[in-house]
């Protein structure tokens, strides 16, 4: 990636947390995917009245300021056979969250690992998403996570039905 980022300076919004109006227009235009053609950035530019160079430069800028986390393909994991997606929530003593979170995140099968607040009816503060070919495979990973952290109180939640799944849109 470095190679692509270094060759030209980026333009667009430089500060974090302030979005440049043209950047927003660009993101709105491409958030559902860029055209799959030889010169996609030219086609995007033509549609928005920007030059090909400016489109490229703005995307680089959005990556540098981390407004865009990745510029890449999102794969439909079920279609490549990764059929199981388990959300496993853990009750972790607050003083151990930092350490446990890092251990959980180190498993390659864990795609997301977040801390969230607890409530009287919801004691689970650490959320992990595990992807695998089968439920059994996910549960093996969960067993390993249990062993590594010594945690006992957890719930495995499987998705029974997907009502909506899109990328994060603006």
């Amino acid at each position, binding site marked *: 990636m470095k190679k692509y980022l270094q060759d030209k300076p980026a333009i667009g919004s430089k500060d974090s947390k302030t979005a440049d109006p043209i950047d927003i227009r660009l993101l709105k235009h491409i958030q559902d995917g860029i055209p799959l053609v*030889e010169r996609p950035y030219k086609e995007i530019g033509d549609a928005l009245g920007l030059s090909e160079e400016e489109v490229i430069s703005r995307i680089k800028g959005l990556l540098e300021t981390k407004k865009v986390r990745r510029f890449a393909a999102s794969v439909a994991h079920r279609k490549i056979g990764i059929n199981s997606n388990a959300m496993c929530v853990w009750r972790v003593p607050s003083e151990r969250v930092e350490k446990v979170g890092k251990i*959980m995140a180190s498993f390659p099968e864990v795609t997301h690992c977040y801390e969230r607040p607890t409530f009287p009816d919801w004691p689970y503060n650490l959320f992990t998403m595990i992807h695998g070919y089968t439920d059994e495979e996910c549960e093996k990973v969960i067993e390993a996570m249990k062993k590594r952290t010594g945690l006992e109180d957890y719930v495995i939640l499987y998705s029974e039905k997907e009502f*909506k799944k899109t990328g994060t849109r603006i």
Partner: protein
Amino acid sequence: MELKREDKKILHRLQSNFPLTTRPFKALAEELGLEEQEVLQRTRAMAEKGLIRRLGPIIDTHEMGNTASLMAMRVPEQRIEEVSRIINAYTGVSHNYLRKGKNKEIPYNLWFTMSAPNKQELTKTIKEIEEKTGLKVRNLPTTKKFKIGVKFNIYRGE
């Protein structure tokens, strides 16, 4: 869709750092030892088949100055479709799943993520959903991120 070795190679590569050059598919082709047209055609075919959901920016809502959160609700079985329709109508909702606890009973069954331009908007939408459905929405915002990055190993299972 039967994936050929070339498809897997392309799919694997496409999951990170799509080239930001005038001819990105040509750059990819050179890296992978394929022809530009082949990379383009295979990518198009995988997109048409739905294997590639989209090729483009993965936006960080938070860095864009937006706010996002995970919501959980307890919805009676017979109202799930109806409540889901109400929730999905909001463009800020990116994921919405019916989930069941496997080893334990849990108080919620409908889980969705929602983003909004700011906290006030998010709170307003939560209230709206509660009013429209007559059900409580539990807001579970992220307090710390340890990992985020969905990248799959295309070659596993070979």
